Structures are given as C-alpha cells and as structure tokens.
C-alpha cells in the first residue's frame, strides 16, 4: 500500500500538482480509516488530503483513474465492474450475460452496429446507467479498432468510436421519441429541458467511452506510459496564446480573485500605516473614563489614498488571443478599482473606459470594444510609437502621482519608431509603470520586438503567459 501511494503521489507531482510531505503522510493516515473496498471513498480520501485546489481536481481524477484502474483486483480497490473485464474475452462473456438479463436480445457475440445503436438508444432514453456503461464497452470493442502496441493517442480511438455512433443523430431521435411520449404536447420549455437532459446523458456516455478506452490503453501500455501521455497542463499553466475555449473559460473565472488581490496590493500601503496624527479631542474625551488620565490615545484615520489605474492594452492581431484575455482582465479590474481608465490601441489609440463602465455583460463589452473602438490609424498593424505619441498628447496630463500604469502587449512594433520617451515621461509622473508581455522571454527582442527599449523606463517588465505568472506578478507587487 505504501509503495502504491508513494507511486501515486509521485505521479501527481509529475502532473504538476504541488503535494507536500505532510500531505502525503496525511493521505496515508487517511486511507487507514477508509474501508478499502469503497473505491469512491478511497478516491475522496486521497483528494481531500492531496488536492488543495479545486482547479486541480481534473488532473487528479485523470491520474487516479489511470493509476488505480488496473490495480483493482490486485489490491482489492475497485468496484465489482472492475474485475478483469479489461480482457476482451471475458468482456464478451460478461456482455452476453448482461444481454440475457435484458431479455435475450441477441447473443452479444457479434452485435451489428445497428444493434449497438439501438440498445444504446434504449439505454439513453431510460437513463439506464449500467446499460450505458455496458454499451460504451461494446462500442469501444466494435468501433475503436484498438490494436495492442499501436502508438496512437486515446483521442484517436475516441474519435473513431464516436464517429460510428453518430450521437447527434441519436440526440434527435431521442427527442423525437420523448415528444411522442408526451403525445406531441410538449411545451417549448419542457422540450428544451428534455433536450438538455439527453445532452447530459450523452455527455456521460462520452465520458464512459473515454474511460473505457483509457482503461484498455493502460492495460496495453502500462500505467507510467499512460500517465505521461495523458498529462495536461494545469489551468494555471495554460498559455493564454494557445488556450482552448474551455481553458479560456477557466482562466476567466480565475481572473476575478486575482484582480481583487491586485487591488489589495496596490492599496496596501494605506492599510499598514493605519494611524494618522494624534486626535486630541477624542483622546481627551476618552480620558474621562479613566478619571482624566489619557490612558488611551486616539489617532486620526489617515485619508485613504485611492489607487488609480491606467491600462494601455495592445489588441492587434499578433496578440489576438492575449487581447481577449486582456480585455477580460481590464473589465475585472474596472470592478475593483474606483478609478480605472482603459485604452486600447493597434496603431491608433482610443479610450474604452466608458464601454466597460456601463456594461453589465462582459461579452457585450468585449464586442463593443472590438467593433466600436477607433484603434486603426493607417493600416491596422501595430504601431506602438504612434499610439503612445497620441496617448501622451491627449491623455498625458491625466497621468499623476496617484496613477499606476499597466501596459499590456508584445512590443512588436513593425519597425516603426518607438517613441520610448512617452514611457519615460509616464514613469516620471506616475507612481509606477509596469509592462506585461505575453511572449516567452526567449522571444523578446527578436525580430521587431523592442521590449528592452521600453523596459528601461518601466518599473518592471513581466512575462505573462499564464495564470501562474500573472499571479506571480500580483504577488510581487508590494
């Protein structure tokens, strides 16, 4: 057990999860109290002790599934369906038993694709989970065409299986069927709900199929190899530039707390100096309760100094993916700071503060910025120099000792003049100037990137390609 757990923890660490020694010990302590046959409880016990961040849950689950999928019989950690049906021969037998139970439909040995589809349809319609799981297995056997030792990823098999099942068609059929049950008198709302229910079940089926493929791959290639191929970056390590839709949604969720933290950091100084000058009146008033002895001096509260933020963001094509994120960041910042002014530029620059201010919905706001902001001056290719020049001319006077400036962009200037003096002026006037660059550090100053020239006049340029780095930036800001 000990070896098993430490192997598991090692795998978690490989996947990037921070697991400390004490957590490891806790996990070992915890599993002692858990009935070992209870796979779910076992999993939750490990999760509660080892995973301290909800966003890591998925990574944990994957590792868990891979790591413990085959250990079932060996260590008696596994539910009953985990007993040896990774072996295709047994599977067939097991399947046919199931089939018999269903009223003897077919021998189960060689089910035709139509039969599988039909049974799957029934299972989905009646939300029969055991049947769905069984059909997922049958479908994988039938369609995935898995060959031992073939060096392709699980996604390939998944794709093959799903293509043959035609789940979209299945969904339509399901809805048709269920609306017939209602004698065609379904309200639109009911229909919508019904559709969602089926979509949900199909989603579940997909997960089932995926798990099945994974189990077989593990059986074929062994745990360590599988765990390696399934390793995905944790949410905080996902590159903004190459984030998928789903990953982007996760990133967006994480931004909110970060901006709050940023606001707290920037406002921190006023907190630490909590005491202002002596408040004489209040002290005398207080002293009355001690017979005129001023035992408890009172102080004035210092006037809170409200941080102002000026965000200048590049939204040109070269940083398109980052720009999407940037806009979300700006929107979130706007909710945290009393005074935020936001500017976007490509080769022209435009203030977009008002677009974020009166907009409740972030998607609308982003859409408005992308369509309405007047950021193209000549040809719509980045021209930092011109944009900064115009910025200084029009808004330079608004930069003062209270403002913190944040520039977001890759500093790829298309060989235009840099106008770095704008930053120099800004730095003279503003409280601080930061630059966040979405490019890997190794790309800086290659080609038309002029980041170093700008960086001379900032209080720091930070590589900001993923949430971890953004968080690091916020943390270091004291």
């Amino acid at each position, binding site marked *: 057990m000990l070896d098993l757990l430490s192997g598991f923890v090692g795998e978690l660490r490989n996947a990037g999860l921070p697991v400390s020694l004490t957590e490891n010990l806790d996990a070992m302590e915890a599993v002692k109290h858990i*009935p070992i046959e209870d796979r779910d409880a076992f999993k939750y016990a490990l999760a509660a002790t080892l995973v301290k961040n*909800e966003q890591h849950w998925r990574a944990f689950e994957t590792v868990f599934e891979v790591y413990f999928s085959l250990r079932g019989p060996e260590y008696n950690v596994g539910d009953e369906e985990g007993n040896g049906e990774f072996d295709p021969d047994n599977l067939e037998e097991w399947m046919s038993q199931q089939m018999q139970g269903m009223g003897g439909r077919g021998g189960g040995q060689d089910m035709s694709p139509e039969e599988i589809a039909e049974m799957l349809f029934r299972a989905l319609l009646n939300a029969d989970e055991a049947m769905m799981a069984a059909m997922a297995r049958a479908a994988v056997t039938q369609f995935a065409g898995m060959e031992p030792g073939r060096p392709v990823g699980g996604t390939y098999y998944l794709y093959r299986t799903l293509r043959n099942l035609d789940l979209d068609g299945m969904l339509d059929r399901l809805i048709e069927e269920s609306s017939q049950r209602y004698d065609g008198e379904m309200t639109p709302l009911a229909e*919508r709900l019904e559709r969602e229910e089926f979509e949900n079940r199909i989603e579940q089926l997909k997960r089932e199929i995926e798990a099945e493929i994974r189990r077989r791959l593990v059986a074929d290639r062994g745990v360590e190899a599988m765990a390696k191929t399934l390793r995905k970056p944790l949410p905080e390590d996902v590159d903004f530039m190459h984030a998928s839709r789903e990953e982007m949604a996760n990133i967006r969720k994480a931004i909110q707390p970060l901006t709050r933290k940023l606001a707290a950091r920037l406002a921190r100084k006023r907190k630490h100096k909590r005491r202002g000058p002596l408040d004489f009146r209040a002290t005398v008033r207080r002293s009355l309760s001690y017979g005129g002895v001023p035992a408890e001096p009172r102080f004035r509260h210092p006037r809170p100094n409200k941080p102002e933020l000026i965000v200048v963001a590049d939204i040109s094509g070269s940083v398109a993916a980052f720009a999407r994120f940037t806009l979300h960041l700006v929107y979130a910042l706007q909710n945290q700071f009393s005074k935020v002014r936001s500017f976007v530029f490509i080769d022209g620059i435009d203030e977009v503060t008002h677009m974020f201010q009166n907009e409740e919905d972030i998607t609308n706001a982003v859409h408005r910025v992308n369509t309405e902001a007047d950021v193209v001056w000549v040809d719509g290719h980045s021209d930092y120099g011109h944009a900064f020049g115009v910025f200084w001319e029009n808004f330079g006077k608004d930069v003062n000792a209270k403002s913190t400036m944040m520039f977001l962009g890759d500093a790829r200037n298309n060989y235009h003049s840099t106008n770095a003096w704008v930053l120099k002026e800004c730095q003279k006037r503003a409280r601080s100037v930061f630059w966040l660059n979405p490019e890997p550090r190794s790309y800086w100053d290659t080609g038309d990137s002029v980041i170093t020239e700008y960086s001379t006049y900032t209080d720091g340029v930070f590589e900001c390609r993923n949430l971890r780095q953004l968080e690091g930036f916020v943390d270091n800001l004291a």
Partner: protein
Amino acid sequence: MNETMFGDLSGVREGLAKVEYLADDGIASVVFLAERLGKPVLIEGPAGTGKTELAKSVAAMSGARLIRLQCYEGLDEAKALYEWNYKKQLLRIQADRGVDAEHEDWVELQDDIFQDEFLLTRPLLEAISAQDKVVLLIDEVDRVEIETEALLLEILSDYQVSIPELGTIMASQIPLVFLTSNNTRELSEALKRRCLFLHIDYPDLEREKQIVLTKVAGISENLAEQIARVVRSIRQLELKKAPSVSETLDWARTLVLLGIENIDVEQAKETLHILLKYQSDIEKAAKELTVEA
C-alpha cells in the same frame, strides 16, 4: 470527542440526512475523515451551496455546540483569539493602591493581573478551552488578510493557543473545525496544508431534486424534478451569478405557494427574479428561455 462519534461512513450520511442535510459521497467521506484524523476541513465553493450549512448540520447531528467566527477584513487577534481586559486590570491596580500602597510588590501584582480572570476569550480560544463538544466554524476565511491568516495556524495544527503571559493553553478535546471560503483569493499554502480540502459545487440534478424535496414542504416530485432541470439549464448560461441552492429553494417555495404544478415559460419568467439577482442576468435568462425553446 471519542472515536466512535460517527460509526462509519454511511453513519455520517444518515446522520446528516436526519438533520436535513443531503451529503454526497465526497462530503460524507471528508466529514468522516475529519473526525477520524482530527483535522480541520477547508470548504470551498460558490456562494450558497451549503458550506456554512454543513458545519451547522454536523453540529446539530453530533449534538455539539457551534462556535462561529465570522471573518472580515481587519479581523485581528483581539477579536479572534483573546484579549486582556485591561480596563479591569487598571481597576485592579488602582484598587490595590487604595488598600496598601506601601507594600506593593510589582511581581505579585503582575502575576495577579495576568490571570484567567482578566482574560476575555474570543471564539477561537473559547473553542479550544471548551469542556463540552464543540464544532468551530470559521466562516469566510478568505476575507481576512493574508497576514491574519497566520493567527489560525497554531490552532489548526496543534489545537493550542499560546498566550505570552500565561503560557500555552492546550485543547482538552479536539474540536471539529470547518473553515469556509468563497475563493475570492487564494489561501496560503500553510493553511491549506493543515486542512482537509473539500470543494462543494452546485449539486447535480438528482441531488438538487432531493434537496428540494426534503426542504420544501408539500412539493410534488414532478415539480421538484422540473425545478431542478430549469435551474440546471439556467446555470449553464454565462451569468454574473448563477442561482445557488438557497435560491433554488426560495424559488421552489414560491412556486408551491403560487400553486403551480407545471412550470411554463411565462411563469418561469415572472418568477425569475427569485433565482437571479442581477437585472442583466434576469433579462438574459428570460431571453434564453423564450428564444431557444
């Protein structure tokens, strides 16, 4: 707290169900482990999914006293741990002077005024020094500053409080500790390391339905099912604030009061403001429910 407080895993579930808290496997396992290992539980999750409720239910189920510390920005040790009642101490010094000012012995006096008598216990110290069974709930721990978090560490790992003038106060019994967080900021590693971690998300369809059935009197199974489905549908939209479980319950009660048995679009739209609290969200959901259907 004795070893057999909960019996086994299913005991936890049943116990919680008795006090009308429907726990899923994850919740039950973690509560069970917390008691067995004597470790605090850090509960995270969106607002209104029953984090605080869990602590209350565990207290109710085990018949323990619930001590609650509500966290807020600016919470300090005087309000969380203990405080010397210095006014009383001052009085004590003055009273001494009146009697025999001549024979004042400073050391004696110092020993005298730093006594339990002059100590004001605050929730954390109270939980540690309690003789009866207690459940300590530290609510919304993410609201305190990161520096204040450190206050909790000694209590959470060793169940003791060190008071410089008095020495260390050890817990006579290990209280069950629940910390809740809305995840508005990342908690420190040190704190997380000391806790079991439990993430409570919005319940799935079946559990939400059961919750509605348990908590709302006189609701039919059919209606509960519909409610759960509509709520799930709304949660899938991109909203500022997704409906929480408590809002689902409010909505269910409203529908029961209105005598509605089958939800149609019109009724749903009219009562949306109970589920959603932002005007923009309400509009969006109303639009979604009409258009796509």
